[in-house]
């Protein structure tokens, strides 16, 4: 067994060495992403998005005449594994640039590896505000929208639709649940909404009816929730059962209602609205071409992860061409303030905290499908720069 493993490892290493020798003049981008485990579905979208953009760029002559080569490592959505794989990509595979981290903890940890290796990392998935906030790093960029941009967009829409709305909050009782509720609460109160109360139910609760008395007594116009997966199915359908959905607007986090649970929720999901950075419906020629090419290549619709990963390759291309080099310091300078075109429209990387600004969308479930009902400009959604490290 041990011998087999050693031989396999040797074979793997020699294969890597071989490809390095063969492709000496390519630009190597490391992809440290979960290809197995809970987040394998996200890793799959990341891979599809990166590969489609790479194929397009390479077909048109690459970046400054050099072809892009993607080198994958499976991070298993585990920050410890992601760190090891990042070190391997920098030290053994000698990648010029790193991306693919999904879990916010992994992005923060791998960011420190990138600082030590004096290379750049860009995440296309992680939501946690701290990555481009108090834990920002000069070597880390984020091209996707952070959690704060989603809640700001949703709150702006709410303020317009129902000024001074009375809002009740229900979240799952753990870090993500509490942080999403407090982020939306802050954003909504800032634009005039009134908070009536909040309740945190254990993750995976069977029956939410025990909280309905509290909700009924508070008489909210809006319920914001950040439950996800099957918890959403139970919460929404039980609310429907108890007649609580009448005259109530349901809002939630972007993971609350997804393609995985929308069918099971059925009619109870009608009218649910959330803030997102991407929808296949976005009406511009870049997006239409992108969706068609993505579907043709992968037999699946792109989601926000696939789209943001696709956009990253073009950001890196633009930055390298502007810097006329793949040198870390020169590319960093070029990325700061960079504006480039993506399926979501033009994005600009804010120099102060390395966070991409983009138009945010509010989508609502109409006849079982998400439809775009509102847009919020990048400047309005991004919020203040809280990064103090550079």
């Amino acid at each position, binding site marked *: 067994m041990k011998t087999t493993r050693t031989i396999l490892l040797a074979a793997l290493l020699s294969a890597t060495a071989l490809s390095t020798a063969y492709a000496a003049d390519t630009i190597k981008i490391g992809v440290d992403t979960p290809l197995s485990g809970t987040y394998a579905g996200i890793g799959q979208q990341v891979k599809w998005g990166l590969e489609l953009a790479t194929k397009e760029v390479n077909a048109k002559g690459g970046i400054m005449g050099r072809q892009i080569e993607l080198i994958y490592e499976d991070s298993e959505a585990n920050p410890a594994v992601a760190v090891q794989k990042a070190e391997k990509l920098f030290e053994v595979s000698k990648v010029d640039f790193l991306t693919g981290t999904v879990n916010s903890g992994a992005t923060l940890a791998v960011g420190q590896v990138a600082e030590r290796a004096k290379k750049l990392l860009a995440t296309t998935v992680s939501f946690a505000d701290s990555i481009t906030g108090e834990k920002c790093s000069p070597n880390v960029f984020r091209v996707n929208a952070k959690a704060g941009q989603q809640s700001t967009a949703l709150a702006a829409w709410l303020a317009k639709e129902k000024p001074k709305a009375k809002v009740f909050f229900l979240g799952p*009782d753990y870090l993500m649940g509490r942080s999403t509720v407090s982020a939306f609460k802050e954003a909504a109160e800032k634009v005039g909404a009134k908070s009536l109360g909040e309740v945190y139910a254990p993750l995976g609760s*069977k029956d939410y009816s025990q909280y309905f008395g509290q909700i009924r007594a508070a008489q909210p116009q809006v319920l914001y929730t950040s439950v996800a997966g099957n918890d959403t199915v139970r919460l929404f359908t039980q609310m429907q*059962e108890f007649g609580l959905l009448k005259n109530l607007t349901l809002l939630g986090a972007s993971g609350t209602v997804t393609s995985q649970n929308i069918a099971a929720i059925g009619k109870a999901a009608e009218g649910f609205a959330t803030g997102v950075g991407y929808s296949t419906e976005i009406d511009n020629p870049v997006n239409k071409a992108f969706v068609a090419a993505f579907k043709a290549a992968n037999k699946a619709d792109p989601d926000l992860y696939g789209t943001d990963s696709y956009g990253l390759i073009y950001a890196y291309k633009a930055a390298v061409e502007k810097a006329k080099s793949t040198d870390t310091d020169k590319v960093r300078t070029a990325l700061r303030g960079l504006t480039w075109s993506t399926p979501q429209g033009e994005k600009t990387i804010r120099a102060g905290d390395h966070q991409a600004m983009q138009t945010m969308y509010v989508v609502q479930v109409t006849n079982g499908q998400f439809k775009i009902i509102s847009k919020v400009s990048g400047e309005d959604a991004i919020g203040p720069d809280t990064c103090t490290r550079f």
Partner: protein
Amino acid sequence: MSEAVQYFQFVLAPQMLIGLVLGVAVILVALGLTIIFGLLDVINMSHGEFYALGAFFALALAQIGLPFWLLLLLVPLLMLPVGYIVERALIQRVFHSGDRHVRTLLLTFGLGLVMEDSYRLVFGPNPYRPETPITGGVEIFDIFLPSYRLFLIIVGAAIIAAVAFIVYRTRLGAMVRAAAFDRDMAASLGVPVQHVYAGAFAFGVALAGLAGVLLAPIYSVFPTMGRDFILMAFTVVIVGGMGSIAGVVVAGLLLSQIQAIVALYISPVWSDPVVFGIMVVMLMVRPQGLFGRLGHG
């Protein structure tokens, strides 16, 4: 005074009513568990997965167009042969060994894992939800209750009464109790003990399946749903007295009421620890539970 009445009417009573629904649901799952334990002396760790099997049977049959009301009858009937075969083919193999408890526990635990993964393979990881067969609601003393939940309380009570009647008032029940009390004596008096054992297991499993059909519209259907009620059901069986039907009913109602009322005053996250704490105290003070075992007067 009127404040206390209002508090009762608008806060306490609705909460207790909701607790009653949950109590009936837990009792339905725990009934089969306690019968299997009381008679066979087997702790069925896969009971939650049989509960899920009932729900998945209902899901599959509903897809070919059968109405919900027929499924209430059909699914338990389908569960009977499944339970019978599992008992004869698997449990009997390790039943007569020295450490019966450990072996049957491991066997049923493993069976539960296999079943759960099979659901994932066949139906995928995503949740499903059958439409609630009765929509709308009723007001009882100004307290709103969805009609389907009222239906659940009534049907649940009827099932509990029927089970108690079969076990305590029929010839079949007498045979079951006799086999539980003294296997060898019952056998020598002509009770077909092997069939009684397999039959009782099948009956317990069919009850779990019936609970699966009844609860699917409220709690939805997904591969790991078996874990939902099983801890609470085990607690109810332990507190009520392992193998006692009356014990399951009393403990089920008591614990679900405690859980519902406790949730009003402390964070709902603590309602499970409170219930398990009661179980631990019960095991320390009165390990036989509130009531005695099946067939042991």
